[in-house]
């Protein structure tokens, strides 16, 4: 029988009806705490990441509100300068390392990547569980530094300050070092999964754009994270042994540290934003019910961003004292990241053109993303221009810019994706009414928080300031009020999503009429994703074809082939 299966031409493929009410799904197939903590199921691991990052987003968010409250007036409102410095450092470090880097890749990516490929799991399920535990251990170290002596260096750990300060730099950087390995292992796992675990017929040209984005992200994770690891290892050695590579007092060079740090941390920006591009492609395609315009342009621009993004780290250092030549070269390269990014935005707009647009909550977030991310993008061009950068570097303009990209971009896409896949992950529908209300509140709150920061930044307000001169007070107060509005928006989301778990309407397998494989299984999915081996004969966005064309598969009990290259040709569908 294996002979029959290895030959694509004689493969038996048939339609499978989606079981809308399977008695067993991945959530109830096993129970007990152990079945979660030691699961190798990518979906459960994804949910555990989701819970962890939600926790850290809450912690980081509360810290942000504390900071904004302190900045309501230039005087001391809640805390002294030392405490303020610790809190902004923790806000940054938690949001970057514990929330945003694992947000879309580790939570949504883990849940969706194998299903979208038509696989039962990622290539290395145990390694996947290990990544989660490594992440948790790293997080524990980071939190331990809180208990010992909260770090006050800023999330960038610049030397020599990070060598001299009395705070728990070693614990914190060691935590980040450990979490780096989690990121590396997840990236490796995803790359291998995309290469080797695709369902029959899932050619590269049929991959959902979310997968392309995850693939590009994983490449950056594997490429850049090891350099962060060695940088932090050297920093730890600098503090413990005084090796003198980064510490000028011992003959080292602080600019070298900055090069090392940004060699990772700039690509890390793309680890944060590229997955968001993937989510947006899915949302806009589905809710416009239209073939995504320029599939290859979007797919390849993710890889182009990954590539060019690895060569531009020096634009964080235009006034650091690096050579003028480096500054000019890095500025020149920086602008080229703008091209593939712009291409994506135009392609998404073109997808909406002549579509059938359903402004559900996820689509609303996608539109908010387009607006906010465009602002984030063009202000990035502003910062890339060397002469203007001299004025804007290390001011609130930069703060506003990266919040527009990271929060207006990644977090909005993450929220859109969370609402979009919420029915798939939980089997329950969220409240559409409250979904839209909170999206609007978040949009208003976000702009109120960060638009004033652009203005005070270009006016000259430096970042990481505990206190400020009077002229900036109005802008700071607007920003603080905005942050409260933003906070309310997130509280509403937390309430109605939690409510939907108990009282939400039951979700159908494909509430949005999407075409990718994640919607061709029940909601929530079965323990091993599918009862059959899916076979792919259409593109991920072929909305002009009937949906029945997308539920093709081979029954598991007749399929034991080894065509791991996924190269079953078109005729397999015709043998039905």
């Amino acid at each position, binding site marked *: 029988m294996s002979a029959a299966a290895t030959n694509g031409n004689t493969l038996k493929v048939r339609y499978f009806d989606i079981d809308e009410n399977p008695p067993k799904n991945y959530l109830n197939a096993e129970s007990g705490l152990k079945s979660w903590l030691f699961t190798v199921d990518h979906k459960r691991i994804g949910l555990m990441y989701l819970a962890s990052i939600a926790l850290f987003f809450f912690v980081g968010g509360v810290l942000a509100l504390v900071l904004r409250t302190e900045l309501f007036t230039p*005087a*001391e409102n809640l805390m*002294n*300068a*030392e405490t303020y*410095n610790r809190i902004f450092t923790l806000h940054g470090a938690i949001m970057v390392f514990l929330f945003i880097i694992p947000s879309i890749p580790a939570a949504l990516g883990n849940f969706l990547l194998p299903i979208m490929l038509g696989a039962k799991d990622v290539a290395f399920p145990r390694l996947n569980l290990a990544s989660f535990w490594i992440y948790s251990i790293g997080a524990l170290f980071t939190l331990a530094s809180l208990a010992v002596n909260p770090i006050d260096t800023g999330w960038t750990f610049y030397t*020599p*300050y990070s060598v001299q300060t*009395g705070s728990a730099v070693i614990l914190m950087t060691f935590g980040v070092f450990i979490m780096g390995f989690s990121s590396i292992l997840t990236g490796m796992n995803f790359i291998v999964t995309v290469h080797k675990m695709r369902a029959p017929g899932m050619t590269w040209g049929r991959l959902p754009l979310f997968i392309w984005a995850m693939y590009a992200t994983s490449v950056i994770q594997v490429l850049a994270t090891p350099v962060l690891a060695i940088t932090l290892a050297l920093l730890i050695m600098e503090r413990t042994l005084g090796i003198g590579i980064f510490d*000028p*007092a011992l003959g080292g060079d*602080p600019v070298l540290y900055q090069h090392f740090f940004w060699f990772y941390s700039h690509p890390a920006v793309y680890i944060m934003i590229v997955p968001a591009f993937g989510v947006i492609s899915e949302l806009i395609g589905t809710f416009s*019910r239209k*073939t995504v*315009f*320029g*599939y*290859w*342009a979007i797919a390849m621009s993710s890889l182009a961003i990954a590539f060019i993004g690895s060569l531009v780290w020096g634009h964080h250092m235009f*006034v*650091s*004292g690096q050579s*003028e030549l480096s*500054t000019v070269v890095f*500025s*020149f390269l920086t602008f080229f990241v*703008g*091209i593939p990014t*712009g*291409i994506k935005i*135009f392609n998404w*707009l073109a997808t*909406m053109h*002549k579509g*059938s*647009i*359903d*402004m559900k909550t996820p689509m609303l977030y996608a*539109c908010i993303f387009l607006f906010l991310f465009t*602002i984030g993008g*063009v*202000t990035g*061009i*502003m910062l890339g*221009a*060397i*002469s203007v*950068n*001299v*004025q804007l570097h*290390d*001011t609130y303009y930069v703060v506003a810019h990266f919040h527009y990209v990271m929060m207006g971009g990644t977090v909005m896409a993450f929220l859109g994706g969370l609402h979009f896949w919420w029915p798939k992950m939980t089997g329950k529908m969220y409240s559409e009414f409250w979904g839209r209300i909170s999206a609007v509140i978040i949009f208003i709150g976000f702009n109120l928080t960060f638009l004033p920061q652009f*203005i005070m930044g270009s006016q*000259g307000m*430096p*970042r*990481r300031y*505990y206190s400020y*001169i009077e002229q900036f007070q109005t802008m700071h107060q607007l920003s603080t009020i905005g942050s409260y509005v933003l906070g309310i928006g997130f509280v509403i989301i937390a309430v109605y999503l939690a409510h939907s778990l108990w009282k939400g309407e039951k979700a159908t397998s494909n509430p949005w009429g999407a075409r990718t494989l994640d919607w061709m299984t029940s909601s929530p999915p079965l323990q091993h994703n599918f009862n059959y081996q899916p076979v792919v004969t259409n593109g991920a966005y072929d909305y*002009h074809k009937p949906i029945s064309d997308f539920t093709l598969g081979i029954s598991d009990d007749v399929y034991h082939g080894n065509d791991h290259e996924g190269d079953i040709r078109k005729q397999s569908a015709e043998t039905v």
Partner: protein
Amino acid sequence: MEYLTNFFLPSAESTYAANVDALFHFINIVSLILLVGITIAIVYFSIKYRRKSQEDTTPLITHNTTLEVTWTVIPLILILIVFGWGFNDYVEMRTPPANSYEVYVESFSFGWNFEHPNGIREANQLTVPVAQPVRLIMRSRDGDVLHSFFVPQFRLKQDLMPNRYTYAWFEAIRPGEFVYFCTEYCGGGHSMMNGIVRVKTQEDFDSWTEEELGRDLDALPLAELGRLVYTSAGCQGCHSLDGASRVGPTFAGLYMRERQFTDGSTRIADEAYLIESIVEPQVLVNVGYPNNMPNIYAQTLSEREILGLVEFIKELQ
């Protein structure tokens, strides 16, 4: 237009500031056009093509080469313009004229020292003549951390490092007082590390120079000297005069008050204690404050200056 400019940017007070601003406005205008266009497209498409029924069908449009080339090439041209423009101005910002007036700048946690070619020293305040290129030769104090010198109205910013010299230059176009900031995070006193650049007419500058050179510090009363040292040595970065708690304890009402230390002991803040805590700050650390005062003042301050500081603190009752 004037109003808009002032809304986004502080007044332009150096020779190259206007060029920087022009590029800033150019990018803003192009960005605004782009943003408005995208927003209109989103809103228009969302209304015009809203879903009418669940049976809606959409056309199959996979790509459009003309369109795609257009939206690749136009941004490409724009970014090349922006790069060239920024590069051109940057070259000017990095090329001090040969006849520049040179000032040595030293940064430390948390303050600034400026030394003029004629030997005049200023602390946390820089006085320069108008319409004269000024070249700043900058370095952070040995063993100190990174700082950055930022004068928003001059569009000038440059990091300072303890292990090498960096430089920057400006030419102020009119007299006035312009605030400068530290923009490289450096610890507890970071946000207090600001000061004033005073731009004077050549005559005012000359008479100021004469006055400074003629002043005899040794003839000053001790408390007066102490007030000068309080700013010049950077005490004000951490120790307030109004009772506010900064990185370190306030100087207001400090004299003869009981202090509690991290080792559990207590002491009355008399003259002997004040002197010891200046020259050996690591020995007795006040409860509630970090142990991060630089252990350098025994070397950098003269005995008379230390006594002056003590007298100054005594007066703050």
